[in-house]
């Protein structure tokens, strides 16, 4: 395989996201750990994914689930130690699974030694590593992100008697990237983990690195300059490694983070995700088509990351007010389900545990432009617990079997880091890996087959997309094309059977071959191609010219 192709591995990957803490507990202390994760790598490999994205596992007071890092060079003792990580990483690589780790560039925990030193006196050499002010007047145009908990982006530090800047929780002071020492320190952190062998970083909260008065302090040119410098060093010293941006912005703003192939390799497409949910609920393709048509072209080497659910709330920042109200009304009728500007629920409960809808959403995820990310547990249809506070309800232990602690841990149930999902519908007795492995048509086995089909071609990962516009708005149809290969995707977004006529005149003469069963369909002729589709049904057709 050529170097160039290998270096674009992230474009063809299917990524699986998990938290070490939630996956498997090897030492029966109630908390998942790296040796446990390593034991379950066969499962991950069998699922067919190419990469693991791990949420923060660094030492942390865990006031924001690890996104409040107090030491960038180590592993939180609950999850093991650095040696455990290295062993795990090696085992993953032996199975062909790459590992992407989190790096929180924007801020640290207020317990980090850097901040402790910075606040200790105004003369401390680390003082200028954070953003301080005697007043809370600066950067008034910056929005508050955690609306449910924070009143201001400035917090008063009683130790040094001044304000410090924080875009997220007040216990997460922002680093000062106007100070070159900070940049060098963070590059040092990256080098440390790259030298150990990690394959990429998901860089958290990227748009907020730099602050300037008179701006909203997001996506500033200075921030892009920092990213460019990181990328330059990465390419020079660690070719083939990948940077993934977390920038919850509109596509046009996020696209700038790809630069001219000199910033991020990948970035999340945040606005697409809620619109997939919206389209299925509305039974109307409009939201999806509209947002993808607004999505700008990105460099050939760049890639969108797309997802259905993740460890955070289903964010509704990148929707209009009307759309947000609709999403709340349809998917979060119980206000407990809502947090910040979003919905803290997992995929299966949001789909009312309707297998057909869960499959449809996964089909959309796997066939749209971008690298798909699966959130652990969604492959078996795990439920959530909206009463656990913050977003912990979607971070409960993985459900491996119907036995003791769902097979997650041998500890006393009371000792688990989080209660298990135990209700009759989504509880571990009903939803678990072991039982689904035994049933050929389980969601888990269906997911494996879907991933296999997706990976049978590069069209989905690299191809262009062209929407068809049948008059039936409940049908979302598009042609993906990469080089000479074409795939027609047809999805019925509605709960009832639909007839649709597709204008496939451009592909006249082609024979559609349904990709899961490899069955031939009638050759495309002069007339509109008539299809009838069951509720929430999808087809992937390879268009062959034979």
């Amino acid at each position, binding site marked *: 395989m050529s170097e160039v192709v290998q270096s674009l591995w992230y474009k063809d990957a299917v990524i699986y996201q998990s938290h070490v803490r939630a996956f498997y507990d090897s030492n029966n202390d109630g908390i998942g750990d790296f040796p446990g994760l390593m034991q379950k790598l066969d499962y991950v490999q069998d699922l067919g994914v190419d990469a693991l994205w791990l949420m923060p596992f660094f030492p942390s007071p865990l006031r924001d689930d690890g996104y409040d890092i107090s030491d960038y060079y180590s592993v939180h003792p609950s999850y093991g130690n650095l040696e455990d990580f290295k062993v795990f990483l090696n085992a993953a690589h032996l199975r062909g699974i790459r590992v992407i780790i989190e790096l929180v560039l924007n801020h640290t925990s207020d317990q980090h030694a850097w901040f402790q030193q910075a606040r200790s006196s105004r003369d401390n050499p680390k003082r200028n590593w954070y953003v301080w002010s005697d007043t809370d007047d600066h950067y008034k145009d910056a929005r508050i992100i955690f609306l449910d908990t924070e009143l201001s982006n400035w917090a008063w530090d009683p130790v040094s008697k001044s304000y410090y800047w924080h875009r997220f929780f007040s216990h997460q002071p922002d680093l000062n990237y106007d100070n070159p020492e900070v940049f060098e320190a963070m590059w040092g952190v990256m080098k440390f983990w790259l030298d150990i062998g990690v394959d990429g970083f998901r860089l958290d909260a990227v748009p907020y690195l730099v602050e300037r008065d008179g701006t909203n302090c997001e996506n500033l040119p200075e921030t892009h300059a920092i990213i460019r410098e990181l990328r330059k060093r990465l390419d020079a010293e660690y070719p083939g490694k990948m940077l993934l941006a977390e920038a919850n912005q509109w596509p046009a703003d996020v696209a700038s983070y790809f630069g001219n192939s000199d910033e991020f390799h990948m970035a999340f497409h945040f606005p697409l995700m809620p619109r997939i949910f*919206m389209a299925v609920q509305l039974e*109307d393709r409009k939201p999806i088509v509209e947002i993808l048509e607004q999505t700008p072209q990105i460099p050939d080497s760049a890639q969108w990351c797309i997802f259905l659910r993740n460890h955070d709330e289903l964010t509704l920042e990148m929707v209009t007010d*009307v759309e947000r109200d609709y999403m709340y009304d349809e998917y979060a009728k119980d206000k407990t389900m809502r947090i910040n500007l979003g919905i803290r629920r997992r995929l299966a409960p949001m789909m009312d545990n309707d297998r057909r809808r869960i499959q449809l959403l996964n089909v959309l995820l796997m066939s749209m432009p971008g690298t798909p990310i699966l959130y652990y547990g969604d492959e078996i249809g795990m439920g959530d617990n909206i009463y656990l506070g913050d977003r912990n309800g979607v971070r409960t232990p993985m459900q491996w079997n119907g036995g003791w602690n769902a097979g997650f841990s041998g500890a006393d149930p009371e000792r688990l880091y989080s209660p298990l999902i135990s209700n009759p519908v989504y509880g571990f007795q009903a939803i678990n890996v072991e039982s689904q492995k035994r049933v050929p048509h389980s969601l888990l086995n269906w997911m494996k087959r879907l991933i296999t089909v997706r990976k049978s071609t590069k069209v989905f990962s690299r191809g262009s997309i062209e929407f068809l516009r049948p*008059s039936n*708005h409940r049908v979302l149809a598009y042609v993906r094309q990469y080089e000479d290969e074409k795939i027609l995707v047809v999805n019925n977004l509605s709960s009832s059977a639909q007839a649709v006529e597709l204008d496939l005149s451009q592909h006249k003469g082609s024979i559609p071959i349904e990709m899961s069963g490899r069955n031939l369909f009638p050759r495309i002729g002069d007339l509109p191609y008539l299809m009838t589709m069951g509720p929430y049904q999808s087809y992937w057709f390879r268009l062959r010219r034979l």
Partner: protein
Amino acid sequence: MAEDSFLTDDLLRQLISVGEVDLLVGLPSHNNAETIGRAVEAIEESFQRAFPRQRVVIVNVDAGSNDRTSEVFLNAVPRKNGNSRGLTSLRTEHRVVTRYENPSSATVFRTIVATADLLRARACAIVSAATPNLTADWIGNLLQPIYRQDYDFVAPLYARQRFDGLLARTLLYPMSRAIFGKRIRELHSTELALSGRLATNCANQNVWHDAPIQDLPQTCIALTAVTSDYRCCQSFLGPKLRPAHVSAPDIVTAVRQAVGALFWCIDSQDSYWIDRSGSEPVPTFGPDHELTDEQVTVNLQRIFELFRSGVAELSPILKAIAAPDTYAEIQRLETLDERNLCFDNALWAKTLYDFAVAYHRTLLNRDHLVQALVPLYRGKIYSFFRQHAASSPSDIEADSENLCLELERQKPHLIEHWKVNSEVKP
């Protein structure tokens, strides 16, 4: 085309794609390329503002335009409502077109209500593509009472210049109010809204080919709502402008169409009203009515002359239609000069009822009978102009109310004559 397939296959194919909807707006058109684009903008703006979540469709029923009206309809670019990123309604906003060559209004309206029925629309508004000042508020005001408040029929109310809409003011409203007992001012407007239930009822009626309602089927729809005890209301839309290049129909045509349709409804629905007396208001959204004070120039001399010549020419017919005392009074009026002619409310009420009875008994060709009312109507509006030349809007309104009350007071006279030699249809 067979009677049971008046909807074209092409329309059906479009409807299959649209599927079930919440809201349907019917947009009849005929050579309205100049105004239909604005109408579409207004309708879609209303969808975006008031119904962003609902499944919506606009159905253009075109009467054989040769000015590319339907193309303009399909290609009209929706106005953006200022949402960020250009996102507007959540759902696809459908536009459907169907065309007939020279259809009657009844065919156009029937197509719209049948479409609403097929698509199971919860609310259906019908607005004219010719109206130059159609706004998003109009659509909202027509649809909201049905969609949000469960009404079945919404009649429009307009701000009118004080001598505008005289046929409605002096005849259609007072007479329909007195007979059917509901105070709905605009029974024959080109704008209205109806619920899915009422649309289904109307679509299933066997009246669409009856001659009297071919030109104004909306009167029949409105009175079906009233007589079937659907929940009716009125909604104020504001002033209605006439299309720049379209002149008002002449009086004969207007009377033939509007009065013909009303008389036909009175005749066919007598079992509903025969035992009712008085009238009741219907809920009204916005002002009950609004008269403006602009001055208008009217050729009173001409109206007077047409009254006298018409009465003279139609004397034998009028004698056959009107009761003897009514006819005698009309004869007396014909002899008066311009200064003394006064067609008062009592005589006008009596005259209308005599004509209704004659229509019921089919004393002569019904169309001719209705046309015979035209000179008398001229006499009435001549009196109206003279009486109210300097009246304030409230004086005019008070006089109109008096006419309504007079018709209500004389309704027993109508019933008495109606029942003679006739059986009220069950």
